[in-house]
């Protein structure tokens, strides 16, 4: 599970702003936000954590389905 919504809300940032800052298209970031992504590159993860000032564990959570 990707907790991007909560982090964006806490940081008062929109998805569009974050997409511009990390260098991803809005479409790809939306895929990540909605949990439809199959994989995330380390570079993408690092860029998101840098912009949101968080740790990977703040962004990703494992849920047993």
């Amino acid at each position: 599970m990707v907790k991007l919504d909560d982090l964006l809300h806490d940081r008062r940032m929109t998805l569009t702003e974050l997409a511009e800052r990390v260098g991803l298209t809005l479409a790809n970031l939306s895929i990540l936000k909605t949990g439809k992504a199959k994989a995330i590159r380390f570079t993408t993860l690092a860029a998101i954590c840098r912009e949101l000032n968080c740790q990977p564990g703040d962004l990703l959570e494992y849920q047993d389905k």
Partner: protein
Amino acid sequence: MTEQNLKNDALLQIGRIGTIALRGLLWFVGIVLILAIPYIIVADPSEVAELQLQISGAGISTDAKLVIASVGVIAMIILVLLERFLLQLQRLIESVGQGDPFAPINADRLARMAWLLLASQITAFIGMSIAAYHAISEEADFTGDFSIEGLFIVVLLFILARVFKHGAAMRDDLEGTV
């Protein structure tokens, strides 16, 4: 790469137009054969005397109209196989132009092309063997050998099909990676 890029890529354009043109030619020849074969079978010998002269000049016995007809049918089969081969190639080229060369269906298309080419080579060999059996002239050479180059292309196509299958699997893995 979009449909627009198909128009901008000269190689793809040439390939696409070439395959369409060749398919048109094969269709035309096929229609001629469809009309000619029954005519040859039922025609009065005097009406096909000139044709028989040409064929006997090539060293084939014209006693049996069935021989001429069977070689014609084999030619038809080869035409159909080659037309289907070119259709697969055309679809492959179009998919590259659409920016989707590693779609799983392209691996299937390449495998089909390999089988079609192999089938056409086998059919041509059979046709040449029939002509050789009915040869009346020692100078006439109808020995049907399998073309090494043709077999090499068949193997190459099967290998390419495998490559594209792996490419499609890798693309599938990457899809959804952000």
